[in-house]
């Protein structure tokens, strides 16, 4: 038994809080262990343990000594766990290797067996081939015999046809004579009934019945001849009933339904069938006409007689139907509702054998696939099959089935109703505020996706239109409220506050007009996040690049989330925000107005800042975190949003971003580090130098066909050109006319004539760092350059544009802080801040 005293668990919270306080007060620790800001303290505790064990001299070692035992114990425990994990991983690998060996051995034996089987098959095939050859010889002989036979039969057939024609002529004349006889006989028969036949009839026979008997008698004479009439009449007279009986039905298989030709009122059918009008029949009183069975039908699957049979939610109704005069349609009804016609004409040789006299028996099969929408595990339904003959006779089979629904899970944004998800409606009414000025072409996609959101209470959609275009036609289509403001009234913060004030929901969501929700459950998941904790004030969802996004746009989104360390859904906050380094501040406070949501009451309390031209979302996020509120950042849901911008836009956008973030995140140190060029002219010369180097590098890459498509070779070429050394001036002839023009404008504002720079250029090092980030993205996502050579050049130029914007912004901030802002610098600032 160990006699070492283990640290008590109550020590944990004190030890951790002391360590976190230390972390928040020390920027070197924040830079080294950024993950600790998001709750991952493993490495930080390791550092503390090393420090207290004196393996690392540190000024705060004494502070930590009070909980030395806990840090050491925790670190040891973590190390033990890591080692255990490694051991398990090694064991797993060993097992995998073992499994692989077994698999390969198994594969080998299977292949051997396969080879053996194939050899046997080959031999068998050879035997079959020989047999086939013999059969071919036999068939050829048979064919020649049959051909001879066919010729003889053809001659015979021709003679028979001639003979048939003669007989047909004779039959025609005989038929005419017979008709005359029948007519006179019918007249005689009527008189005979009137005078003599009463004595043959049973007592109480009514006059109408007599007429019916007469009609039947006439029909038999017309159809089957006098001999048959007398035979039937004699038999019936002997048993005292002259009514002619039905002709005997063929014996029917069990489950077969037979129906006679009947009037619609006597048929039990669904509403669709009752509208069928019967064709007029030959005799005046159709109800008295007795005919043979018209339609025979049987349902093979599912069995409809007896106990209800169990079927899956997608099942087949299969069976056969025959009729002397043909079947026109078979309809299937589930719970009284028509599912449409079944496919007919399927081959049924078994039916043809059983009913050889029916003309359609050979192809009498029918089939209908029935899909029952999900519900409880087992649901009972009535199933009816109605067949209609060419003569409008009907036959019906009815029964019950029990549908057993299977576990099918509809994933988010599935086009089909996800019943479970619908049941779990997130509490709270959402209001969605969409700001627009000039709606993009697919603006209605945004509205459609918002309208179709699932798992929420009915959403309120508010469109704040600051443009000239009339959007009132969207109001009815998407149940949206359109609020119009004048273009000059638009202001990022104020307009959003206005939208929030106009809303009536519990939660207010903001989405830009060019962002399309990528999930039907976007709002539901955002509301659930807000509902998870009362102190969560805001929530934001990720951006997904559009399918037409260029390399630079994709890389920018990738880098944004990597920089924020956002890889999964999380809730973030900080009790000591201002002590964190800028990157962590941004990571914690980032609420992205492309898609964000807030508790309405908290939003109306804190509001967006007015006069904030950019990053109004980050500014609000920082104020919320400072008030001990939390931010939800979702990675599992998002909106489709990206822009393909020009290089000159990147110059201006980055310039503005840097200026804004500098104020919000207080990035003085970076400004001092990177904006310390002695003068604007010197900076422009350095920019000119970088541009020249990039131009030459691009020419070189094109000449070498991008080093044969090799990623490493291509980026090494760029690196070589960014190293110190004189590069011939290109006079701002960049591959992008747009960037060249923007830079010429900058040079013109400053009235600077570029001179060739000599010596070390620090901007080359900074640009190389950006290129390296881009390279790491490209190598992670693309395994080669084939097909993306020119997009890569475009991206390099855009990257250069972004870097130029950054350098100019840092220089501006450096000058402002050191109170050296000149009129030229202010003029340049106005140019770089416009049209963004």
């Amino acid at each position, binding site marked *: 038994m160990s006699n070492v005293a283990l640290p008590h668990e109550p020590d944990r919270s004190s030890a951790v809080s002391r360590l976190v306080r230390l972390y928040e007060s020390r920027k070197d620790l924040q830079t080294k262990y950024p993950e600790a800001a998001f709750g991952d303290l493993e490495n930080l505790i390791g550092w503390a343990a090393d420090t207290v064990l004196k393996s690392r001299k540190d000024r705060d070692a004494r502070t930590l000594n009070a909980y030395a035992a806990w840090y050491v114990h925790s670190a040891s425990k973590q190390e033990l766990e890591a080692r255990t994990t490694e051991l398990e991983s090694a064991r797993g690998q060993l097992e*995998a290797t073992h*499994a*692989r060996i077994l*698999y390969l051995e198994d*594969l080998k034996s299977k*292949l051997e067996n*396969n080879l053996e089987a194939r050899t046997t098959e080959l031999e068998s095939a050879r035997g079959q081939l020989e047999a086939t050859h013999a059969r071919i010889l036999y068939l050829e002989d048979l064919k020649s015999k049959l051909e001879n036979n066919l010729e003889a039969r053809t001659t015979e057939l021709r003679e028979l046809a001639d003979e048939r024609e003669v007989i047909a002529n004779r039959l025609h004349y005989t038929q005419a004579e017979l008709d005359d006889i029948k007519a006179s006989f019918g007249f005689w028969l009527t008189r005979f009934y009137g005078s003599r036949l009463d004595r043959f009839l049973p007592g109480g026979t009514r006059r109408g019945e007599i007429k019916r008997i007469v009609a039947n008698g006439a029909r038999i004479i017309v159809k089957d001849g006098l001999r048959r009439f007398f035979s039937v009449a004699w038999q019936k007279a002997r048993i005292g009933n002259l009514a002619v009986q039905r002709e005997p039905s063929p014996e029917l298989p069990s489950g077969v339904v037979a129906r006679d030709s009947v009037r619609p009122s006597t048929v039990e059918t669904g509403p669709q069938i009752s509208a069928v009008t019967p064709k007029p029949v030959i005799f005046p009183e159709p109800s008295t006409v007795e005919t043979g069975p018209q339609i025979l039908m049987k349902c093979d699957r599912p069995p409809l007689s007896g106990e209800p049979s169990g079927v*899956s*939610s*997608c*099942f087949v109704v*299969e069976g056969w139907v025959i009729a002397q005069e043909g079947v026109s349609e078979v309809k299937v009804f589930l719970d009284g509702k028509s599912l*449409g*016609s079944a*496919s007919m004409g*399927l*081959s049924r040789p078994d039916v043809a054998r059983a009913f050889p006299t029916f003309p359609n028996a050979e192809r009498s099969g029918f*089939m209908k*696939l029935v*899909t029952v929408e999900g519900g409880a595990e087992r649901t009972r339904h009535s199933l009816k099959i109605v067949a209609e003959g060419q003569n409008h006779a009907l036959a019906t089979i009815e029964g019950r089935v029990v549908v057993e629904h*299977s*576990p*099918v*899970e*509809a*994933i*988010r*944004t*599935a*086009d*089909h109703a996800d019943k479970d998800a619908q049941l779990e409606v997130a509490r709270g009414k959402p209001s969605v505020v969409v700001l627009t000025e000039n709606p993009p*072409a*697919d603006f*209605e*996609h945004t509205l*459609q996706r918002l309208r*179709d959101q699932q798992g929420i209470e009915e959403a309120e959609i508010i469109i704040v239109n600051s443009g000239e275009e009339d959007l009132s036609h969207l109001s009815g289509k998407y149940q949206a409220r359109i609020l119009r403001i004048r273009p000059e009234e638009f202001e990022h913060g104020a307009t959003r506050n206005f939208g929030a004030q106009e809303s009536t929901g519990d939660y207010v969501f903001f989405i830009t007009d060019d962002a*399309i929700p*990528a*999930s039907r459950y976007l709002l539901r998941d955002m509301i659930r996040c807000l509902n998870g904790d009362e102190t969560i004030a805001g929530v934001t969802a990720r951006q*997904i*690049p*559009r*399918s*037409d*996004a260029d390399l630079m746009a*994709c890389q920018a989104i*990738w880098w944004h989330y990597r920089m924020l360390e956002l890889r*999964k859904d999380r809730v973030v906050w900080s009790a000591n925000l201002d002590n964190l380094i800028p990157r962590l501040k941004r990571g914690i406070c980032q609420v992205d107005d492309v898609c964000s949501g807030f508790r309405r009451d908290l939003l109306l309390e804190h509001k967006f800042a007015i006069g904030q031209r950019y990053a109004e979302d980050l500014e609000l996020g920082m104020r919320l975190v400072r008030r001990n509120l939390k931010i939800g950042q979702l990675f*599992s*849901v998002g909106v*489709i949003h990206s822009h393909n911008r020009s290089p000159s836009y990147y110059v201006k956008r980055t310039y503005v971003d840097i200026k804004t973030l500098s104020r919000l995140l207080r990035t003085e140190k970076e400004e001092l580090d990177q904006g310390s060029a002695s003068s604007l002219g010197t900076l422009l010369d350095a920019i000119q130098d970088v541009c020249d180097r990039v131009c030459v590098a691009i020419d070189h890459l094109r000449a070498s066909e991008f080093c044969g498509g090799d990623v490493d070779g291509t980026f090494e070429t760029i690196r070589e050109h960014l190293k110190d050394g004189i590069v011939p001036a290109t006079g701002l002839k960049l591959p992008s006319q747009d960037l060249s023009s923007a830079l010429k404008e900058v040079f013109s504002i400053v009235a600077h004539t570029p001179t060739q720079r000599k010596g070390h250029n620090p901007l080359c090092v900074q640009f190389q760092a950006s290129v390296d980030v881009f390279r790491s993205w490209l190598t*992670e*996502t*693309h*395994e*080669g350059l*084939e*097909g*993306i050579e020119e997009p890569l050049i475009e991206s390099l130029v855009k990257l250069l544009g972004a870097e130029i914007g950054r350098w100019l912004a840092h220089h501006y901030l450096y000058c402002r802080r050191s109170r050296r802002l000149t009129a030229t610098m202010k003029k340049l600032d106005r140019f770089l801040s416009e049209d963004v």
Partner: protein
Amino acid sequence: MMKVLFLVHQFFPKSYMGTERFTLDLAKQAQRMGYNPRVLTYDRSPDRKQFEKLTDNVLVRHYRYAGIPVTAVHSRIADAIEIFDHSVATAVDMLKLDCDIVHISHPMWVASVARALKQVRGIPVVMTLTDSWLLCPRGLLDLGCRLCNGPEAGARCIRCCRFSSKIKSRYEDAKTLFDMADEVVVASRFVANLFIQNGWNRKTRIVPHGIDYSNVQVAECHERSRLTLGFIGSIAWHKGLHVLVKAFRKVPDDDLRLRIHGSESESSDYYREVLALARPDSRISFLGPFQIDRLPDVMRDISALVIPSTYYEPYPLVMLISLAYNVPVIASNIGGIPEVIRDGINGLTFEPGNVDDLVRVIRQLADRPQILQMLRSNITAPRRTEEEALDYDNIYRNLKPA
């Protein structure tokens, strides 16, 4: 970032059907979202000059298509019916496939690669069932091209389609693959039910396909004096072009046109039959296949797209493309189609193979072309590739957390 290996039975540029388009669009979007995708496919008729020998029986070729690296393999002894092909399986190690997730877009020819990677390296497998091939190599049509509802563990295949008894072992292999996959995904509820109905009960996810809108240009709709029906797809019996041609010819309206865009060998009997059926009617034009960049022009010329399929159409991409272009769809009421096309709302449906029913629909449109305007106004833009990719992104992340 994760490396995803897509396995598909055939691929661009040789083959460009719906499954290939789904695979390419998803791979490209995954790449935009930071994944490293690669496609492994099979080439049935390889050009020997482009391929190199990997093993005695397996040839291989590496190339790129639309920025996606592709590895094409060919086996001399592969069998199109079998699920697992041992010759390709033995070559998996030599292919040096480096991936974190295997995504089967279609298992034909390539399923053995997924099995080997799963069994030996423990790599998670996602399988999207884009059709019924796993159940039936004949697409659930019997020898007489009649609909079949399932193999009954192979017994029905032997009875109706005269397969040898080997079909039973194929069925077992298919079930093994189905059970082996960590996630089984389908595009429509119909396909999910098709497998469940055959007793393959497991949790499947429904992720409807998306459309790459980067080339979609919705034209302003002007009422045309002539009603132009369009057909886009393979000219094969199960696609039902004969039904459309027969029905179209029964509506003798001079203001009607039918434009057929489809690929099929001219030597095909079916193609010749349909051609003969259509030839006397000058209103019908056969325009052959077209490149994807011509799609906006093709769609601009069509008033309504007809999908007259006579088999269980799982979830046709051409239907979604048509809706993306705001062109109404007239389609057989079969398979996954009714899950998207609601009769009289965003399209019109008719009974599969029923010429008279299709005549009724065409006549309805010819008599009252304003119906098209009504249908167009009800069309909701179908899902985008980005939406579909986000669903798969969540699936991949669940299987392989960062």
